[in-house]
């Protein structure tokens, strides 16, 4: 393990870290989106008249929630494809 040269070690650590990061960054927004959909469906079954309003609000809030997962994905893409540490020091 310790005979690895530093750039390989950093690449391995980057891959490990980004895997853990994307898993966490996908799980949390997915759970929250599930809760949002559940509440919206509850509302629609209780009041079918309000379905149109609820659908618009649901779409907007889903996109806002989804964007947090996208932020995690972007950071991880930068780490994987344009790693600043590797570019600067090696």
């Amino acid at each position, binding site marked *: 393990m310790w005979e690895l040269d530093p750039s390989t070690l950093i690449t391995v650590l980057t891959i490990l870290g980004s895997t853990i990061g994307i898993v966490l960054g996908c799980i949390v927004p997915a759970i929250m989106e599930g809760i949002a959909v559940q509440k919206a469906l509850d509302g629609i079954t209780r009041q079918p008249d309000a379905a149109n309003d609820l659908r*618009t609000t649901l*779409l*907007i809030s889903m*996109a806002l929630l*989804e*964007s947090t997962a*996208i*932020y995690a*994905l*972007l950071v991880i*893409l*930068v780490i994987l*494809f*344009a790693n600043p540490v590797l570019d600067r020091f090696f």
Partner: protein
Amino acid sequence: MDAITPQIIFYLYGLPITNTVVSTWVMMFLIIALAILIKFMKPSYGEWLIEFINNIIGSVMPADKDPKDFLVVLGTLAIFLLFANIFSIIPMMVSPTANINTTIALAVIVFFAVHIYGIREKGLWGYIKDFASPIFILPLEIVSQFSRTLSLAVRLFGNILSTDLIVAIVFILVPFIIPLPLAALGMLTGVLQAYIFLVLASLYIASGVEIQEREKERKRLKKEGAKS
């Protein structure tokens, strides 16, 4: 690195021209040709489109505002984004919004449109007074203006780039039927993101235009309360 940054195709008077800029030009000609075609062949389609965008804007704006005032900026943004987000299904082309410079430019347009519409609605001094109406809110308000612009840009960029990238990765693994559903999902996401961008931009413009009304309402209520 090549996957997430646009590639430079040629230099025009020393300016680097990337592939997203070239596909934006192609898309501009496509939109102009389509607009001319609709204008001379079926004007009712154009009317229907304007009505559709008007309805979306009107559902977010305060009730006494005419959505036609904002149609110039928001309708243009909506049509541009609708084409730009699904443009990568054409071979040899990339989505213009898969480059972060495009989305930042669009978000900056929205940023300035909020203040310009606000100043046009209430005058410069009235707008500044509304903007800092409880004075201790002012720093938070300034921070939120910038962070919402940033999130508007990064959300669009991330969504379009990630769907394009997923299609590309699956295409490397299995170059046959399998990438098709993912490309369809990317188109769905693109149309949804254009809608979201339109709704959020009109929401921000509405918040710039609207505060005065609430203030006026409060003053009226206070006056009525004093009378009775």
